[in-house]
C-alpha cells in the first residue's frame, strides 16, 4: 500500500509539471480561440534564452528578466507579423500559422543560443525529502514540491487575471468573437500582443522548471505531447482545468505504468511496459466520449 501511495503522489507531482505546459495552451486558446501548436517550441525557446543569457555572463535573476523580455518581444512580433493579417480568418488558418511558427522557433532559437544540451541550475536539488523517506519510506522530491508551489501561484494569478481584470475580460471577449470584440472597441492588436506575451511568460516558467529537471535541450519541445491529454481532459479554456487535468493524467499514467503491464503479461505473455506514452491519450479520449468539452471547458451552444 505504501508503494501505491508513493506512485500516486509521484504521479500527482509529475502532473503538475504537465499542467505548467498546458497552461500556456490554455492562455492562447482562451484569449484568441487558437490552438497554439508552437507552445512546446516556446517552452524550448524560453529555457534556451535563460541559459543563453547565463552563458553570456548574466546572473540567473537577470537572465530570467532578459528571457522574459525576449519572450514578450517575440509575442509582440508574432502578433504583428503572423496574426494581424489573419484576423477573422477561420481558426484552422491561425492554427496552421502556429505550426509554421513552431518550426521557425525550433530553427531560430538554437541558431541564436546554440543547440548543445545544457544544465540549468535553479538552486533546488532534485533529491528525496529525507524526513519523509525515513518516517514513511516514501520518495517525495523536493524539486517536485517546489514545482507544485510554482504552479499553484501561477494558476491563482492567471485565474484572477482572467476573472477580475479589464484586460482579462477583454481577452475572453476576443476569444468569443473577434469581430464583435472589435465592434465594441476592444483593441484586438493590443490584446493579442498581451496574451502572447503572457503565454511567453508561462512558457518561461514551464521551460525553467522542465529545463532544471531534464536539462535544456531540443526535447523540451516534446513537453507539449504531455500537455495535450491534459488539455483534452481539463478543457481548453479553463485554467483550473489544466491543473486538475494535469493531476489526473499524471497520477493515472504512473499507476497504469506500474500496475497494468504485469496483468497484461500474465494474460498474453511478452513485455507490455512503456505504456505511459499512449495511456494518457486513451484516458483523455474516454473522457471526450462523456464530456466533449473537457471537465471544466465551456459548453458551446450555437443558435440555429
Amino acid at each position, binding site marked *: 500500500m505504501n508503494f501505491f501511495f508513493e506512485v500516486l503522489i509521484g504521479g500527482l507531482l509529475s502532473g503538475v509539471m504537465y499542467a505548467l505546459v498546458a497552461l500556456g495552451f490554455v492562455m492562447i486558446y482562451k484569449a484568441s480561440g487558437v490552438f497554439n501548436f508552437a507552445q512546446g517550441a516556446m517552452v524550448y525557446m524560453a529555457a534556451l534564452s535563460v541559459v543563453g543569457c547565463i552563458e553570456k555572463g548574466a546572473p540567473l535573476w537577470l537572465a530570467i528578466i532578459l528571457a522574459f523580455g525576449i519572450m514578450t518581444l517575440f509575442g509582440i512580433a508574432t502578433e504583428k507579423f503572423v496574426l494581424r493579417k489573419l484576423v477573422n480568418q477561420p481558426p484552422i488558418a491561425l492554427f496552421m500559422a502556429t505550426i509554421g511558427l513552431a518550426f521557425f522557433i525550433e530553427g531560430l532559437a538554437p541558431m541564436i543560443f546554440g543547440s548543445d544540451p545544457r544544465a540549468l541550475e535553479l538552486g533546488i536539488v532534485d533529491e528525496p525529502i529525507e524526513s519523509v523517506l525515513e518516517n514513511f519510506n516514501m520518495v517525495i522530491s523536493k524539486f517536485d514540491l517546489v514545482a507544485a508551489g510554482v504552479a499553484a501561484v501561477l494558476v491563482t494569478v492567471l485565474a484572477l487575471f482572467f476573472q477580475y481584470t479589464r484586460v482579462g475580460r477583454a481577452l475572453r471577449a476576443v476569444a468569443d468573437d473577434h469581430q464583435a470584440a472589435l465592434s465594441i472597441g476592444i483593441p484586438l492588436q493590443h490584446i493579442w500582443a498581451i496574451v502572447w506575451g503572457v503565454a511567453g511568460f508561462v512558457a518561461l516558467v514551464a521551460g525553467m522548471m522542465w529545463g532544471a529537471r531534464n536539462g535544456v535541450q531540443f526535447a523540451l519541445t516534446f513537453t507539449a505531447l504531455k500537455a495535450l491529454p491534459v488539455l483534452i481532459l481539463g478543457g481548453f479554456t479553463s485554467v483550473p482545468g489544466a491543473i486538475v487535468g494535469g493531476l489526473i493524467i499524471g497520477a493515472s499514467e504512473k499507476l497504469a505504468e506500474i500496475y497494468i503491464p504485469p496483468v497484461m503479461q500474465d494474460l498474453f505473455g511478452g513485455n507490455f511496459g512503456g505504456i*505511459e506514452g499512449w495511456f494518457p491519450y486513451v484516458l483523455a479520449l474516454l473522457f471526450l466520449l462523456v464530456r466533449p468539452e473537457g471537465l471544466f471547458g465551456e459548453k458551446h451552444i450555437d443558435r440555429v
Partner: protein
Amino acid sequence: MIKKFKPALAAAAVSLALFAQAQPVFAAEEQFFPVIGYRVGPYGANGQSFYGGFIDYLNYVNLKEKGVNGVMMTWEECETEYNNAKGVECYERLKGKAAKSAGPIHNMSTGISYALIDKSAQDKLPMAMMGYGRTDAVDGSVFPYAFPLVTTYQMQASAIVKFIKDKEGGNLAGKKIVYLYHDSAYGKEAIIAMEAEAALNKFTLVQIPVAHPGNEQGAQWLKIRQEKPDFVVFWGWGVMNQTALKAAQKVGFPREKMIGSWWTGSEEDVIPAGDAAKGYMAATWNVAGKQVPLIADIEKVVYGAGKGNLQDKAKIGTILYNRGVSAAVLSVEAIRKGQEKYGKGKALTGEQTRWALENLNITEARLKAIGATDLLPEIKTSCDNHEGSGKVKIQQWDGAKWVPVSGWIEGNKGLIHPLFQASAKQYAKEKGITPRDCSKEK
C-alpha cells in the same frame, strides 16, 4: 557568316587555351564520401561533433599526406535532421555522385540504416553502421554491403555484463540486474543478449521499458527502487539519458551502479544532468580527450591551417568528436587497403570499398603509426565477421570528464555471434537471398 562570328570564335579559342593551361594534364584522383548526416534538429548537437570529427580527419589526410597515395578525399554533406525520409532523399541525391568513387556511408541513425540497407546493396554502395543499425549484418554472407563495424549492441551488452561480473568477484548467480531501455528497436536490440547472459550467469533480469522520448521516468524509477537491483544496465537516447540520471538521484539509486550504452555516454548526455551524473558509467568504443596524439595533431594541422570543420573548437576531443574521427580513420584505412588490391593512386568504387571494408586488419602497430593508440580497438574483418572487434571500454563521468575505468573488454562472441547468424539466416529466407559462401571469399 563565319566572318560575323570570327571575333567570338577567337575569344572562345583563347579562353579554352587558357582554361586548358590552368588545369593539370592529369587531374588528381578524388575519393568521394557521401556524408549523409545531421547537424540540426533534435539530435543536431550529436551530429555536429561526430561529422565535425569525421570531416576534420578527411581534411587532415589531405593536408598531412596529400591524400591516400595522392588520391584526395572529397565529400558532400546532406542534412537528414535524423529523419528517415530525409535520409533516403539524401542517399538518392548523392548516389549519382558516388557512382564513380565512394567511401563508406555513415548515416548515424538506425532508422535510416534500416531504410537504406537494401538500396545500398542494390546500388553497390557500402554502408558503415558503427555502433548502430542492423546488428545481424555482422554476417556478411547475407549482408555484403552493410558493416556494423567495431562492435554491436549485443556484444556491448555482453561486455557490460562481463565488467559487472568482474566487479562482483566473478560470480553473478543470485544477483539482480535491471535493463532499463528506450522502448524502440534500438532499446530492444540488446534484450536477446541480456537474456542469454542472464541464463548463462544465473542472474535475475528485470526489463523496464521507457516510452519515447523518455522525459518522464518517475514510475520506472520507483519500480527500480522497489526491485532493489545490484546494477542498472541502461539503454537510453537523447533526453532519456539526463532524465534517468536525475530520476536515479531522486530515488537515491547510486550512479556508480548504473552502466549505460555508448549512446548514453557522451558529454552531451551527462552535462545537462549536472551533479546527478557524477559516478555514472557508460560503455564506449572510442575514448575521449586530446591525449590521443592523432586528435592533438588534427587540432594543430587542420585548425592551424584554418580548415577546421567545427565552429566550436571546445568540442575537439569530446567523445562524439573522437568517434567521428574513429569512423573516418576506419574509412580511410579501408581506402588504403583497397588501393593495395586495386591500384595505388586510384580512387575506389563502392564495390571495391566494400571488399576493402571486408578485409580490414588494423593492428595495434597500425593504430600507433597513425597516432590513434587506444582511440579505438584493433579491427579485423572478414566475410563472416563485419564487426571486426566486439570490444568496448567502460568509462566513468567524474563530474568534468570521462575517465576510462577498464581496458578493452570483448563480449562473449561464442554466445552472441550465433544469434546474429540465426537472425541473418531468417532475413535471407524472408528476402530470398542466397548467402555467399564465405570460405570462397578473400
